């Protein structure tokens, strides 16, 4: 049995601890704001000689991701971390990392994109990367950020995937809050992530290869099709890695993790730290005999339509919570996917989208209770009488 240690750590420290155990060949990061304590903590490990990583402090986030692309193409196991506007500045190269099929793992501390200027939690940064071709894992707390980071390395580097992976956690709420976490011992973690095997490394002079040539209309579409295919394969690989890692921790990991779904009539689907808040309310309602349930989304890309349908189809009413707005769209990014997944189903629950928590606005148990009571009303509403499908929780009128 794997030894597990209980420690009091912030979410950012958990991510850095995972990076320490992974001991990547190269980490390239921008060293000042909007950087987070993930890199602050990791740079201390570098200074202390706790890792053998080549740590490159670059002059911008654009350069950070560019250095990661070069390093991963060279054949090094490569990681980085960023947040909010830092991720936005990486944008161009984020796409290049995915399309060049480089298995970079990046911790993203979810924070609002300016403007107006804001440094607090929402998911507009990573949700904006939805279509960049990165796999996205979301973490309820520091322990999950740690676990997802270890698993991300294996998922990214799998020969049937070879895609970069973002591991997201909520800014401040998770990244700066101390909680008790259980971590694997170094040996178990290292054995799990295995040695990195580079695919077509640029530094192999015996077999010279070209990265990033001109593609244009004659092959670009074919390379995009390969990315589509890799995402499809990742669905199987992620499940395999979840199961394998579960044998180490004794936990069960899933794309959508349900609680009390066996008879739940009203379900909240959410992600990251809000799942913890919602769970408190679900347990309170359950104690009163109310049939409330929770679905926590761990994986947003790839998105498993069939699984979200299986988890939600028996409910009467579902609230999908989005911590990001898609201006002019029909609801937030998670809602659009979930609602679309049900298109082919004859029987489907009433579905309401709640946009909440933008720019770090509080999402407390009172708001979750309100959502559950609105779900009761929605479940009993006459057809056409539902009212607004897109609602906003926590904004002042």
């Amino acid at each position, binding site marked *: 049995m794997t030894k597990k240690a209980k420690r009091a750590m912030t979410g950012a420290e958990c991510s850095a601890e995972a990076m320490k155990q992974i001991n990547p060949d190269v980490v390239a990061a921008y060293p000042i704001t909007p950087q987070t304590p993930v890199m602050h903590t990791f740079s201390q490990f570098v200074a202390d000689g706790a890792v053998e990583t080549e740590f490159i402090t670059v002059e911008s986030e654009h350069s950070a991701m560019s250095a990661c692309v070069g390093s991963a193409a060279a054949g090094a196991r490569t990681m980085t971390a960023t947040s909010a506007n830092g991720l936005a500045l990486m944008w161009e190269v984020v796409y290049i990392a995915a399309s*060049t*099929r*480089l298995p970079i793992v990046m911790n993203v501390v979810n924070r609002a994109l300016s403007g107006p200027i804001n440094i607090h939690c929402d998911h507009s940064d990573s949700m904006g990367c939805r279509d960049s071709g990165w796999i996205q894992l979301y973490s309820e707390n520091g322990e999950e950020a740690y676990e997802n980071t270890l698993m991300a390395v294996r998922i990214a580097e799998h020969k049937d995937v070879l895609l970069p992976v973002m591991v997201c956690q909520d800014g401040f709420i998770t990244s700066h809050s101390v909680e008790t976490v259980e971590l694997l011992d170094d040996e178990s973690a290292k054995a799990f992530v295995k040695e990195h095997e580079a695919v077509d490394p640029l530094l192999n002079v015996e*077999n010279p*290869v070209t*990265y990033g*040539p001109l593609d244009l209309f*004659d092959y670009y579409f074919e390379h995009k099709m390969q990315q589509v295919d890799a995402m499809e394969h990742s669905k199987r690989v992620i499940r395999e890695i979840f199961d394998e890692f579960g044998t180490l921790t004794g936990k069960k990991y899933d794309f959508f993790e349900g609680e009390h779904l066996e008879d739940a009539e009203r379900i909240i689907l959410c992600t990251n730290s809000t799942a913890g808040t919602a769970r408190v309310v679900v347990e309170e309602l359950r104690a009163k005999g109310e049939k409330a349930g929770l679905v926590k989304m761990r994986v947003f890309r790839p998105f498993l339509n069939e699984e979200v349908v299986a988890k939600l189809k028996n409910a009467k009413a579902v609230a999908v919570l989005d911590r990001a707005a898609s201006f002019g769209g029909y609801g937030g990014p998670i809602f659009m996917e979930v609602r679309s997944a049900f298109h082919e189903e004859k029987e489907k629950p009433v579905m309401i989208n709640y946009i909440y928590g933008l720019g770090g606005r509080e999402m407390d148990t009172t708001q979750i209770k309100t959502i559950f009571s609105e779900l009761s009303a929605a479940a009993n509403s006459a057809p056409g009488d539902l009212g607004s499908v897109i609602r906003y929780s926590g904004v002042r009128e």
Partner: protein
Amino acid sequence: MAERPKGWREIPIGGKILEAGNSVKYKTGDWRTFRPIHDPEKCINCMICWMMCPDSCILVGGSECPAKGKKGVSDNPKLGNFGGFDLEHCKGCGICAESCPVKAISMKEEKEIKE
């Protein structure tokens, strides 16, 4: 260029090129809209076109070049003569025609030639 381009299952992922030096197989001549036409009657074999061509598409012929016997064509096997165009790589920029001092090269639309 003539063979069917490969499908997405048949090519390396990520746009990588795994075979070193395979750019020699990439023919860029089909980018061309205008084709250079050489008039051996006017050509004085000064080779200014060869100097100016940005794509090294002016071929150098020996003394047995197509213009053999014409004015300015050298019989000295050590000297280069105008030897035609590399149409697999010529992109039809027209610099050769523009730089020719005796207007021995003219540009003609590929469409017309095909017709």
